[in-house]
């Protein structure tokens, strides 16, 4: 099973390690630039993009400000259409609900469509502990699962792997999960995709239980929507007799008509296509399926309670902000220590987990505040604003003691002209003794900078001496 993110070091440490990995940086640079260009091309094709973005932001804000009403509306609509609705206050409860549902079918294997929510709650691991194997079917998730790896991107979880690495993983691991890789497998993307098709074919055709997330849930009609590319989603959603969808409570949109906004915003922002190859929309028990919807909180109501931070819940998981971010491009996804990496992860993860670790406290600082993420966000989440807001929270919570001491000392000196002048004269007198490197924790600052030598005379002293003349 994939290792989890527990016990990850704070962002700067993990990022420094990633930046040292030349292969990783090369893979990330190529991938993020490719998709960035594709997105820009299809967004510029859409003459009313700005208006769609404003509508998308407005609709999500509407849902969030009245989420209780919309959740109850969704529940009624799904049940009216023959589906069952379950509520999970946290990840453990969601895992328990899914486990019980799978057990009730008597099956020990399930097929899965790529889903951020089930990654977040560690569903595969929870099922494995109870003897149920979850097979990931999205190509990138398959690469991650076979490689015993962790996802590093929302849309393309194996973005950190290149074709040669993927070939090696397939050859090494496919046999222990099912049909082995074909003999003479090359590293051509076409050949690798074909190997995945063969590996999963039998599994799809015999699957009895499918597990998915959803991109959208329409409160008015109870319709769930899954966008995908490969057809693995359609396989998992259509062929099994039992379908279980784990959906975060923020995934709602008010009405059927509102999908007209999101079905334009999401494909162009995520894969940079006018439309993704396949989208499935179903309402309740479609074609006689046994359908279960698990509504997941798991920290989302914490995020909702923060008037500034709650806009993070508008996120439709397109990952445009990752692809645009200069920090993500260099540090990669793993450094963020969460299934939600990049700029959106930097504001979502610490809020979802409630600043539970040193890593969480470091995430709001994993940004240069350049604002590229805000520009590309299809629902106009002001990520820099939330980053600053969360930094203030971290600072107020008692973290960064050294910085606080230094700032306190600076305030005393800067607010007293006498102390300031004395300090400046002292610095000027000992200017020859200014060290090139600072000691201890301050050394990080001088790793990449020289300390400027203090001038022989301060401006005030110069001004005073000029008047004397």
């Amino acid at each position, binding site marked *: 099973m994939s290792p989890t993110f527990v016990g990850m070091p704070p962002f700067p440490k993990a990022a420094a390690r990633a930046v040292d990995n030349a292969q990783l940086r090369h893979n990330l640079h190529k991938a993020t630039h490719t998709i960035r260009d594709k997105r820009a091309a299809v967004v510029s094709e859409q*003459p009313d993009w700005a208006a769609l973005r404003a509508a998308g932001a*407005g609709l999500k804000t509407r849902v969030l400000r*009245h989420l*209780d009403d919309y959740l109850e509306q969704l529940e009624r609509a799904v049940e009216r259409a023959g589906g069952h609705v379950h509520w999970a206050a946290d990840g453990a409860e969601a895992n328990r609900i899914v486990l019980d549902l799978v057990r009730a079918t008597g099956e020990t294997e399930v097929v899965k469509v790529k889903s951020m929510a089930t990654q977040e709650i560690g569903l595969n691991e929870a099922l494995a502990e109870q003897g149920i194997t979850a097979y990931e079917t999205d190509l990138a998730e398959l690469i991650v699962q076979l490689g015993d790896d962790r996802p590093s991107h929302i849309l393309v979880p194996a973005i950190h792997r290149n074709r040669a690495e993927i070939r090696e993983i397939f050859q090494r691991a496919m046999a222990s999960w099912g049909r082995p890789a074909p003999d003479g497998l090359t590293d051509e993307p076409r050949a690798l995709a074909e190997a995945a098709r063969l590996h999963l*074919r039998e599994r799809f055709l015999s699957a009895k239980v499918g597990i998915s997330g959803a991109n959208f849930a329409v409160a008015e009609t109870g319709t769930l929507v899954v966008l995908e*590319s490969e057809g693995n989603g359609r396989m998992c959603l259509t062929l099994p007799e039992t379908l279980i969808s784990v959906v975060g409570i923020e995934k709602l949109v008010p009405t059927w008509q509102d999908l007209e906004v999101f079905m334009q915003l999401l494909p162009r922002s995520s894969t940079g296509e006018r439309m993704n190859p*396949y989208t499935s929309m179903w309402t309740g028990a479609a074609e006689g399926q046994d359908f279960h919807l698990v509504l997941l909180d798991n920290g989302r109501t914490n995020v909702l309670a923060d008037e500034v931070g709650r806009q993070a819940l508008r996120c439709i998981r397109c990952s445009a902000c990752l692809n645009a971010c200069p920090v993500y491009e260099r540090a990669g996804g793993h450094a963020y220590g969460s299934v939600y990496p990049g700029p959106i992860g930097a504001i979502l993860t610490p809020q979802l987990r409630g600043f539970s670790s040193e890593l969480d406290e470091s995430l709001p600082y994993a940004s240069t505040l350049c604002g590229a993420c805000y520009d590309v966000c299809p629902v106009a989440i002001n990520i820099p604003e939330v980053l600053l807001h969360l930094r203030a929270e971290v600072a107020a919570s008692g973290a960064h003691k050294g910085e606080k001491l230094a700032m306190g000392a600076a305030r005393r000196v800067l607010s007293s002209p006498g102390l300031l002048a004395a300090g400046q004269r002292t610095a000027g007198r000992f200017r020859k003794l200014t060290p090139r490197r600072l000691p201890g924790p301050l050394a990080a600052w001088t790793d990449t900078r020289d300390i400027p030598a203090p001038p022989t005379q301060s401006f005030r002293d110069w001004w005073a001496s000029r008047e004397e003349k």
Partner: protein
Amino acid sequence: MGSRETILARVRSALADVPSAETPDDVPVPRDYQRSRSGLDLVELLVDRLVDYRAVVHLDPSVADLARARGRLMVPTGVPSEWLAGVEVVRDEPPLSATELDALDGVLTGCAVAIAETGTIVLDGGEDQGRRALTLVPDYHLCVVRRDQIVRTVPEALERLDPSRPLTWISGPSATSDIELDRVEGVHGPRTLEVAIL
């Protein structure tokens, strides 16, 4: 207190700042985007977009000729008989298993709506389309689009669709960009999508 009540109570307390008199409609949603547009001829645009995503497109072909060339095809009951002259037809009666569908050469269907701007065909499980597995498991899909089913924009398409039906939106053949963001056609869904516009 069950988790349903716990979550709803958490939501309500998180939203303490929202005035109790506020209704969802009070939250502004600017709808300045375009529901329709003018521009290139609809059919021309649809063909351009379909081809761009590697679908094979025919304008006013003989559907039966295209179908005959493909061998044993699943054909839902609502498909008009004039498309079927000489075609080796397989019916979903009684419903075929996934493995049986996998052994067929392809599937021939109509559609509900086509969206020109995005090159998208929407299936809604109508009589000429059948259940969702029929257009998923076989490796070849021949889809007939009538000119009066083509709209230009996504909003125009949603207006024509019924959310109570299971819907499948198809834009080109199955594809992936998971390896170095290179688009490769043909993973789990039909690897060949052929569209006949009538």
